């Protein structure tokens, strides 16, 4: 009681103090404020704890025997399956072949798709010619084409690469075209008044202005390629991570399945990270100060 009275006196004597306190209180609850930034340390702690929590729940469920190991093995069992895969089953070969298929199919899509997308975004005539067909095919799922491709070109490498190509090419073209078409009009007009021709504007304005956005599109679509390759390898394949997953299911090796899925996740994350970092390095004028 006495303490409370004392506090009140303090408040009366120093009117600046309560205002200050009030601010501080608000600042402490910043994480409740929409879109407000939080301290880096807090952010990191929360992020790490989510991963820790996931592992904790998983460990609790598996080590305690609450869940049948056939459905969900323990973390140690999965690490063990992984080691066996690498040492006895040549898993590295499966990884290599999967990565090769993704890169081959996606590279072909980029090599053909980028110039086409850039031309479509720049010249309305090219857009009018290609847009209807490409838009239509874009909404046909690449996985539905698999039986057709097997019929046409068999179950070899070319079929896998074709699936990756079909899964990525059409979206890549259309998204690139939109990115290029969105280059600010003022930039083109400024270039014209500085004496540049139509062709020169394409090379010296449209390309450099849209390249960071195009690289982000490539990054996004490469992510899709990783899911298409697994579908392709699940259907008809004797090598690759997808076929390993399917085989493991037949032999009830749950640990191998989960390790295969995790491997794909890591590969996707890695390729995304490499692209993300190199894009930031390549275009310093586009990011940060």
């Amino acid at each position, binding site marked *: 009681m006495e303490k409370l009275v004392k506090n009140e006196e303090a408040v009366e004597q120093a009117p600046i103090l309560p205002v200050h306190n009030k601010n501080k209180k608000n600042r402490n609850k910043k994480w409740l404020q929409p879109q407000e930034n939080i301290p880096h340390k807090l952010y990191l702690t929360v992020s790490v704890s989510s991963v820790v929590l996931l592992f904790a729940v998983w460990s609790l469920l598996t080590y305690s025997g609450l869940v049948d190991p056939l459905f969900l093995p323990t973390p140690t069992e999965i690490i063990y399956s992984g080691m066996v895969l690498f040492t006895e089953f040549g898993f590295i070969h499966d990884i290599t072949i999967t990565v090769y298929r993704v890169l081959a199919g996606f590279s072909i899509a980029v090599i053909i798709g980028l110039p086409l997308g850039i031309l479509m975004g720049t010249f309305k005539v090219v857009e009018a010619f290609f847009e209807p067909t490409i838009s239509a095919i874009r909404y046909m799922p690449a996985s539905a084409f698999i039986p057709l491709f097997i019929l046409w070109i068999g179950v070899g490498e070319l079929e896998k690469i074709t699936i990756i190509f079909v899964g990525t090419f059409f979206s890549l073209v259309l998204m690139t075209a939109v990115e290029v078409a969105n280059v*600010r009009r*003022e*930039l083109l*007009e*400024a*270039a*014209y*008044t*500085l*004496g*540049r021709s139509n062709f*020169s504007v394409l090379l*010296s*304005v449209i390309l*450099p*202005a849209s390249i960071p956005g195009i690289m982000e599109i490539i990054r996004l679509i490469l992510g899709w390629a990783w899911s298409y390759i697994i579908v392709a390898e699940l259907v008809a394949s004797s090598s690759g991570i997808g076929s390993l997953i399917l085989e493991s299911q037949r032999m009830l090796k749950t640990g191998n399945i989960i390790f295969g899925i995790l491997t794909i996740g890591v590969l996707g994350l890695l390729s995304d990270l490499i692209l993300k970092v190199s894009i930031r390095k390549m*275009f*310093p*004028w*586009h990011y940060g*100060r």
Partner: protein
Amino acid sequence: MKTMTNPKVQIDNVTKVFSGHKKNSPVLALDTTSLTVMPNEFITILGPSGCGKSTLLRIVAGLEEQTEGHIYLDGNEISGPSSNRGMVFQAYSLFPWLTVEENIQFGLKNSQMSPAQRKEVVQNYIELVRLNGFEKHYPRQLSGGMQQRVAIARALANDPDILLLDEPFGALDNQTRTLMQELLLEIWEKSNKTILFITHDVEESIFLANRVIVMTSRPGRIKADIPIDLHYPRPYNIKVDHRFLAYKEQLTELIREESLKAMMEVK
């Protein structure tokens, strides 16, 4: 000499109709407009927003095609944009992937200059717009006022016959704008360029120009052509001079009528 008395730019009965899309009827943006610009003049075109003043400037720049009429530069009819008519846009027209000096150099790339000469020209214009020390900066690292200074330097570096400015200081704060106006006047006095400058700011139009052209709102037409009889160089405090204020009163009246008219028309 005879060339001194020949007009720099002649705008001869120019009209512009924007064809309507689908159900919209065509819009007459610019009604038979004629204007003669003499060499070394600084003309401001004053009008309410949407009066077609930007359209007129864009036609002179060659970025828009007139529906009728002709435009002559030094007696030659113009068609399409060219480096002999430099343009400064309202904002964000710098190439974000190029540094300040690369932006200024952009138009010089197709000239016959040697790299050393180019470098010298760029350095001159960087000094002219007082951006020393910012040569290697990217546009996004600069303030709005600095960006517009780069845009002016970039347009001037090509040594155009006429400089066209489309509300170049419209997006700047008041203090920066005042300083930019003084800088532009200084550049104009040094370079002897002919300038066409679009604005909706009455004070700006008087402070800069030797002639203010007042435009009507929709359709755009020249309503008044008022010579500003104030001596150059003009100090910043001329804005409180009684002669300046008299111009301001006159132009404010003229432009107010048009703004009211424009306001009534907007659906």
